């Protein structure tokens, strides 16, 4: 069973497949933990480290908090954006110095000076429905959410939505699609998250890993 914990089993850490994978693995290596033995050829989803201390679960970024909340993984590395959107009950002991990006509200460049809070019910396309909804609701607006799973920046171009909420790193994609940033909703970076039970039941190993990572951050 996924959540089963055997004595002497390696600490399990869920890593996001994609943009953060390389940075996350490099960071763990810097902290003295070995990388997965059989390399990440992108097919195997559960990998053991060469020294047997860690087991890696390669997960879709949005799933990392779920693996951790349910205890299928003791720890996880995920973007703060994903953690806040998932709203899972996990500990967040460390912010890690990579994966910097921003969750921003964007609109078409030609309406850049629009008065956002006077709108009746803006139609917003996003992959982050919870954060988007909360952002508008907090200001008394009821957005019409269009939840998408890819290419959100397309939505305003084809008249699907007035606004989008999406992650940006450099802003190039936005500019190329004639969009401008209107507001920053969240400054994001990678965070280490921990299962609430593992944090206590495997306190020594978890603490050792947190401290090792914290040392790398301090040295960086």
């Amino acid at each position, binding site marked *: 069973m996924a959540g089963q914990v055997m004595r002497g089993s390696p600490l399990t850490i869920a890593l996001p497949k994609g943009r953060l994978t390389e940075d996350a693995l490099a960071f763990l290596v810097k902290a003295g933990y070995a990388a997965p033995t059989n390399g990440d050829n992108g097919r195997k989803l559960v990998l053991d480290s060469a020294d047997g201390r860690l087991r890696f679960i390669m997960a879709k970024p949005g799933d990392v908090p779920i693996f951790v909340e*349910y205890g299928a993984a003791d720890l996880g590395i995920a973007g703060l954006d994903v953690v806040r959107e998932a709203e899972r009950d996990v500990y967040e002991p460390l912010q890690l110095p990579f994966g910097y990006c921003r969750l921003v509200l964007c609109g078409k460049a030609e309406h850049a000076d629009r008065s956002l809070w006077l709108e009746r019910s803006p139609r917003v396309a996003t992959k982050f429905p919870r954060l988007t909804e909360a952002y508008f609701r907090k200001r008394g607006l009821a957005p019409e959410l269009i939840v998408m799973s890819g290419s959100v920046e397309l939505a305003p171009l084809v008249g699907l939505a007035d606004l989008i909420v999406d992650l940006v790193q450099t802003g190039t994609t936005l500019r190329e699609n004639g969009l401008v940033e209107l507001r920053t909703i969240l400054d994001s970076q990678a965070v280490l998250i921990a299962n609430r*039970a593992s944090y206590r039941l495997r306190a020594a190993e978890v603490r050792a890993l*947190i401290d090792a990572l914290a040392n790398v951050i301090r040295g960086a």
Partner: protein
Amino acid sequence: MPEQPFSADRPLPEGVRDLLFADAATLRRMAATLRATWSAWGYREIILPTFEYADTLATDVGAKLDAEMYRFFDRHGRTLALRPDMTIPTARVVGTRLYDQPAPLRLSYIGSVFRHEPPRAGRQHEFIQAGVELMGARGATADAESVALAVAALRAVGLPEFRITLGHVGFFRGLLLALAAPDRLAGRLRSAVDRKAEAELAALLQEAPRLAPGVREVALALPRLTGQVAVLAEAEMLCVNASMEVALADLRAVAELLEAYGVTDAVSYDLAEVRDLDYYTGITFEGFAPGLGFNLISGGRYDDLIGHFGPPFPAVGWALTLDRILLARELQGVAPDDPASDVLLSAKGCPACLAWAAEARARGLSVEVDPLELEPEALWQAAQQRGIPRVVLHSNPAALIVRDAAGERRVAAGDWEEVTRWRGK
């Protein structure tokens, strides 16, 4: 499996479920074990109503629970609510009916509670809570009894591995006092501590107004004040006011008593535990098991609650969620109870057979009479399909034909010694 021959389009509402056979049997047996455990400690059970007036259940100390209650109207238009926990109704009973009884009161309960929560790990909208409350006593002796009984209860329900972490709201409250943080900042500090977000905590402390020397260091050390009893000694150097000192003294006294109870190996300490800070007034504790990211049991001292319903009355107690224990046991490989019968009996209306069944049942066996009147071979196959280890037929009033995995044999109808060995397999 055959296709269902009729429409099965009868969905269940979100958050409720059926518990069948092995789950139901395990759950009921755990409940029986819990009753036996706490009645051996002098706790007496009360049975509480499933719904009450919403106003009664919506105390201001339980704002989060309030938002999660299922509400509906009675015929006079008054708002009722399904109980979201058992402690509030228990406090109502004590505050309105039992407040002048000689203290202490030791109460226990088992029952379903109802909460409309966003879907999360391990949470149903209806779940079964079992718990105890020790009321009318302050101090470490009562606190330690509650924790020790929590350990005894988790052991009794057959959970091989678990850990109870013990904290005290006074420690963090004292720290907030020392930080003199404005409300908004205090809220954010608490949220950071709750998530063990060490870096975020450090960043927030930069925003705090002029801090007394040493206070920042204490706050930064907080997320690390978790572990074995030694953290209490560590924390001692970090106390900056009376609230923190009192909290720590309370915990140390409880820790000593827990050692006397012999439960130290099941307990650890966490001074950064800040859940339900508004509800609890003293020690707090939670129990965890490997592989489950949510607590199985939670409790603590709540001296202010009963005062909402009557005269002030100190209290300490806990509740565990039986559904979660079921899951935790499964994850640790504990076999569920098997509710299969001991005997499948072919009776076909024969008085001697039915008399034999009655006698066997009186001796503690579960005996099922075959209502389909199957022939011997079909009967044996039916028993095997259903996990019943043996079939019994009467060849004459004095002799039984028994068939089990070992084969077929004759047993004298009066041989109760043999039959009693069949009990529970």
